[in-house]
């Protein structure tokens, strides 16, 4: 047993060396991705970004990296004409900073809506009624889904993009948290069950309840639901630490990721990280934390453009 453990340690040592050399080679031979505005075979219709915060960093660093990345992503999406962007993090950091993000998106509204109602951010049970004119309307008639488990902003097109007329498109930004994931499916199930029970009271025939994939899809993705993203970028705030273990999805809404192409650059490691253990944490966290870079974004778009979709056939 002890012997086996020794061999295992040896195996891991060899494996680390192999990984180190492979990532070093990749680093040397990495291709420069095509420029942001290059014509690609395909662009995502709905881009989703998962942000992975890190417990080693203080809250401020995490928040700063994530909001900075979101602002950058918004501007890239506007430049390229990607119509929908969803941002997710499991801890709800984005949602708690929704006000800061909104202020940057709608600077002209800053004076008008100073009191961004905190209770609308913390749900359930109150649906987050976005109270500005740009947001989508919420109709009380929709019984099956009277709640929106996420915040949604509609950003009008860039003025400067008007010369490329086809790209001047409005951008929908969805701010998701863990609440929009499995709990949202459960909430939808409860809503369907309540409607069904009410219908049963008034109808004579007591047939067993049946649910089709399409009708559940309608409730989850329909009018007030979340549409499935066709592309997903996983962006860790602390890449050197995150990439020591394989990627995960951190509780992103499961129903919507059926055909989502996933991008994560596993070789974005900084080996200096190992040398920085002696620095005070606030210094090392500013050095090691990373926002989404244009390089990464371009590389991700290149991967999406070259992906092949066969859809089971």
């Amino acid at each position, binding site marked *: 047993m002890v012997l086996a453990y020794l061999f295992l340690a040896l195996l891991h040592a060899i494996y680390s060396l192999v990984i180190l050399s492979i990532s070093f080679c990749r680093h040397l031979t990495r291709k420069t991705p095509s420029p942001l505005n290059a014509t690609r075979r395909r662009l995502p219709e709905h881009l989703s970004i998962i942000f992975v915060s890190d417990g080693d960093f203080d809250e401020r660093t995490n928040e700063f990296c994530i909001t900075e990345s979101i602002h950058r992503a918004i501007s890239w999406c506007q430049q390229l004409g990607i119509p929908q962007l969803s941002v997710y993090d499991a801890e709800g950091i984005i949602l708690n900073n929704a006000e800061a993000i909104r202020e940057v998106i709608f600077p002209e509204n800053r004076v008008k809506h100073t009191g961004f109602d905190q209770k609308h951010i913390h749900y359930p049970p109150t649906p987050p009624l976005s109270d500005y004119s740009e947001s989508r309307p919420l109709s009380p008639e929709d019984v099956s889904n009277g709640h929106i488990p996420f915040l949604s902003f509609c950003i009008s097109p860039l003025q400067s993009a008007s010369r490329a007329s086809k790209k001047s498109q409005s951008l929908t930004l969805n701010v998701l948290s863990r609440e929009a994931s499995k709990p949202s499916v459960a909430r939808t199930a*409860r809503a369907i069950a309540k409607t069904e029970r009410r219908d049963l009271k008034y109808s004579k025939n007591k047939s067993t309840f049946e*649910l089709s994939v399409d009708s559940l899809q309608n409730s989850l993705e329909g009018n007030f639901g979340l549409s499935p993203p066709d592309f997903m970028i996983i962006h860790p705030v602390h890449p050197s630490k995150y990439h*020591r*273990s*394989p990627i995960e999805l951190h*509780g992103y809404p499961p129903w919507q990721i*059926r055909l989502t192409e996933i991008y994560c650059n596993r070789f974005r490691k900084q080996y200096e990280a190992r040398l920085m253990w002696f620095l005070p944490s606030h210094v090392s966290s500013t050095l090691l934390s990373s926002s989404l870079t244009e390089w990464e974004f371009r590389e991700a778009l290149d991967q999406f453009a070259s992906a092949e979709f066969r859809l089971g056939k």
Partner: protein
Amino acid sequence: MTTPSLLIQVLLTSLLHIFHWILARLRVTQLAQRSLLRILASGPIPQHVGFVMDGNRRYARGKGKLVQEGHGDGYLALRRVLEICLRLNIRCVSVYAFAIDNFKRPEQEVKALMQLAESKLLELCSHGDLLQEYGVKLNVIGRISLFPESVQAAVRRAEDLTKENNRSILNVCMPYSSRDEMTTAVEDCIRGALLKDVDYFSADDPIEDITEDTLNSHLMSVKRGSPPLDILVRTSGVKRLSDFMLWQCCENTQLHFSKTYWPDFGLFDFVPIILEWQRSVWFQETSHFV
């Protein structure tokens, strides 16, 4: 001059042949493989590993084979990988064998796949074969009613043959889609809640009991005893989940996208995945201590 060199050559080749024969006789490669697996098994091992067996057709095309042969080689790869997993003491293995959408493929291919499923299911479960040797219970997960009657009968018989086994679980997902599994779970929960309401009146509403956890426990794979999914492996370089165990793998599951086509997938593709799992377990432990 030529005779001694020829003699040496003959001697050398015969020596090599003898050496090779001894190696084969002693099953050195098998021995090496097994000791490697034993070494790996001394560290932390995942409980549940899922495979999306993708790339059979591209493999066949690359080798100039028929599509059906590609699927046949895919089955051999499944046996190989399954044996590795069982030797590592992985408790549950799930494989994506056939998607509901796969019925859209050319009729001939679907027919060949049905025949393959029918014969190989029974082969796997037969007396003295892999599943019986390692005490594996076979579950076929998915909308079985979509299969032709003969395959349905084979499924029932195969499940029946292994129902007493309790060491490990093999979930063969066919014809499967995760959305279908989730919908069935939601449907089950709602049916249960509606039934309870008719039975008796109590203060708590059974509908309010439908939560994330109840939905999870109503999933087909979970109902059949599968532990939470730890690792998902997708072969052939595609970076999508393609409707496989979405609910199970969207949280606390490590995703691996391997470039190898499924029929080529073997020990040396799988060992790094296990090593990475062990590293992450150890890494988490150390960060907990700090």
